[in-house]
């Protein structure tokens, strides 16, 4: 499906991860020099219980093609039960989004512990492959074609485009 996208299309993926497990796991993947797709922008939060389903909606609104939500395995939550609450919330969210016509492959949910750098690499690569297959999320962007805010483009240089432009500040001062 949509294989015409596979060559030129670079998916934009937002990852909402918990500070204690997945963020540390992703850090481990980095320090271990694991090769993985560079399409994912990570947003670190204290806990999966802090991740409101609206974050995902907002990511799609801002032009994300896919979203990852990841945190501590059951029984590992730094706050005892945040991930259990999140599990119920996202189960319901996952099902209702499907009812509304959102492809469930656009949203990846995973448990990645601090020692699972390799698993994080797999989650990222699988998600990127899935989104590559699905193509850009044009259906969501079509809801407000003129209103999608620019996404930081510089994936290769690792510097989001927004960070390169201090000109406005200088004028102000």
């Amino acid at each position, binding site marked *: 499906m949509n294989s015409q996208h596979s060559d030129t299309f670079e998916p934009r993926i937002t990852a909402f991860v918990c500070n204690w497990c997945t963020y540390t796991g992703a850090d481990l993947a980095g320090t271990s020099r694991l090769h993985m797709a560079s399409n994912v922008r990570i947003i670190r939060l204290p806990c999966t219980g802090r991740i409101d389903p609206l974050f995902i909606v907002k990511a799609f609104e801002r032009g994300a093609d896919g979203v990852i939500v990841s945190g501590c395995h059951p029984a590992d939550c730094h706050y005892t039960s945040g991930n*259990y609450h999140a599990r119920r919330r*996202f*189960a319901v969210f996952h099902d209702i989004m499907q009812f509304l016509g959102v492809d469930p492959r656009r949203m990846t949910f995973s448990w990645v512990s601090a020692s699972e750098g390799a698993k994080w690499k797999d989650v990222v690569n699988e998600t990127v492959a899935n989104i590559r297959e699905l193509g850009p999320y044009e259906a969501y962007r079509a*809801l407000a074609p003129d209103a999608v805010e620019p996404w930081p483009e510089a994936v290769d240089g690792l510097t989001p485009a927004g960070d390169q432009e201090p000109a406005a500040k200088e004028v102000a001062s």
Partner: protein
Amino acid sequence: MTGPAIAPAYAGVDELRRVARELLESGEVRVIIGWEDARRGARPVFITDPAEADKLIFDTRCVHNLVTYLDPRRDHVSELGRIGLVVKGCDAKAVAGLLRESQLSRDHVVLIGMRCGGVLEEGELPEPLALTPENVAPRCYGCDNREPTLTDHLLGEPQPEPPRPVMTIDERVAALDDLPLEERWAFWTEQFSKCVRCYACRQVCPLCICERCIVEKTQPLWIESAAHPRGNFSWNLTRAIHLAGRCVDCGECERFCPVGIPLSLLNRKLQQIVHERYGYTASDDPENAAPIGDYRLDDQQEFIK
């Protein structure tokens, strides 16, 4: 025979008027909230004078969920004093929802439960009509609480089951579920694009209890407030998931929607999800914990990698 059949009022109206009068005369409550017959059909009424208790009615036009007046957002109502509230089974579930979430003190309200045999889809009629598959409120079919248990007074006679509507809500949900993903997306975005963001669905809901709704928070602006398809999608999705495992299926949001968005399909789907995943069904037992905000160690997680 011409025209639809006129239905008599449900049994128990005389008792209802007597109980209401006694409650007001004894000072046990300061106000009775029920339904009255007005020029345009049944409508909510606040009665404070015992002599006016005979205004109260209960028939198939009594569609309104009066529990919305107990909502903590409406503290000017609770300031009237102790309230006597007339409830159907579905309304009693909403009272249980407020009690479950500590939004209401049980002492503050005297519940007058009515045995109900279903209501019409629309209550603005000069006469109550007999229920038919065409005019019955679809949610009444298969109702499990036609005799409320969360009451102080239970009035009326046991009623027969309401007729099966031409198409039940479950059948409509199943028909949507059978569509391919793209067509479901097209259906819902089309429906939501009609939304004018009047927030009537929120205002009438007895369980939309936030003092300050997320949609009114502008720093940061989580949900775009302009009535365009993207903000509308976000709003309607958020309204629905905030009611997940809490909605009692009183149907007021859909009935109030001025542009006819089929919100009951969304609500019913969420009810099915929490039932399938967590075995939860909304009831009028306040001790029955709601599924969101609760958890079990062995909850399903087949969608998590």
